[in-house]
């Protein structure tokens, strides 16, 4: 699936090593809900599992279109067929790919997949209120600020406020 700057493709076991490396990097995981660094084996086992992308949990690797390098992953979580809402989960693992618009493009691309292919009604996400760069990127991708959950996530020794942002099917760019 092509965006302007990135391609989203199914993950495969070959992605394990890179994913493992990203999850060890505290700067990559700083603003994610992520706590326990997984083992390489666990990641490989997961990637070897039969169906990578399901209606409930569509997941893709993100490749740069210019170099073909795999720079992260993006997924939707907990999609139910009745409410047709999915929670966005995105990680740009390669530092060299930060601040170049890849995250915004990958977000737009999976949202387009969600609305056009899966027929979802809504995509939402939680972002740490202190992660200003990410909030800007999501707003560029069309997400609307919906509300702040106070002390929602415990990490780095303290509670963090998180912002809920949402995008509805009829608000999304075609």
């Amino acid at each position, binding site marked *: 699936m092509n965006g302007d700057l990135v391609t989203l493709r*199914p993950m495969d076991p070959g992605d394990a090593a890179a994913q493992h490396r990203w999850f060890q990097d505290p700067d990559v995981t700083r603003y994610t809900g992520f706590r326990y660094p997984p083992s390489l084996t666990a990641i490989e086992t997961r990637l070897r599992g039969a*169906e990578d992308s399901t209606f409930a949990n569509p997941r893709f690797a993100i490749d740069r279109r210019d170099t073909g390098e795999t720079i992260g992953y993006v997924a939707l979580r907990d999609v139910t067929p009745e409410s047709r809402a999915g929670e966005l989960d995105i990680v740009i693992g390669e530092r060299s790919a930060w601040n170049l618009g890849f995250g915004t493009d990958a977000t737009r691309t999976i949202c387009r997949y969600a609305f056009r*292919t*899966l027929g979802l009604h809504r995509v939402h996400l939680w972002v740490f209120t202190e992660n200003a760069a990410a909030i800007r990127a999501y707003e560029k991708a069309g997400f609307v600020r919906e509300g702040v959950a106070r002390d929602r996530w415990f990490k780095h020794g303290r509670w963090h406020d998180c912002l809920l942002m949402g995008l509805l099917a009829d608000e999304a760019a075609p």
Partner: protein
Amino acid sequence: MIRGEKVTLRARRPDDVEHAKRWYADPETARWLIDVGTYDVPAEPMAYGDVRLTVDDTETGTPIGTAGLSGGSPEHRHAMLFVVIGDGAYRGRGYGTDVVRTLCRFAFDDMNLAKVELEVIAGHEAALHLYEGLGFHREVHRRRALWIDGAWRDEYLMGLLAGELR
């Protein structure tokens, strides 16, 4: 394996999966797919009710797509035909027609089916033309049946009885 004029239909192999990924990534292929699953390599490639094969261009041995007969019912003696010419270079050149005709002959002459059915998205003119050219009838017009690429599409259930294949 089953031989057509220009195609060979054969059991899937693990190294077909790479080809399949390329096919399904091609927007021209993907736009007419009703559902995209993973390209699985069944342990039993050909069993009544579940024939899932890779299509090769006989001349070059290149895998160009997939086809089969699924959901076969021994009591009612029909199955659902599917075909995807995944390699764009082989579309519009008679390979699709060859696959469908070959599979239908196999269905009637070898599996002893009484009928072959298939589902096709309304608006897929090339496919409709191919199927009707071989004798398929449009039997059921399902309205607003499929959500494809951001819109509702109608779907046809088409059928071919034994003896109707042209």
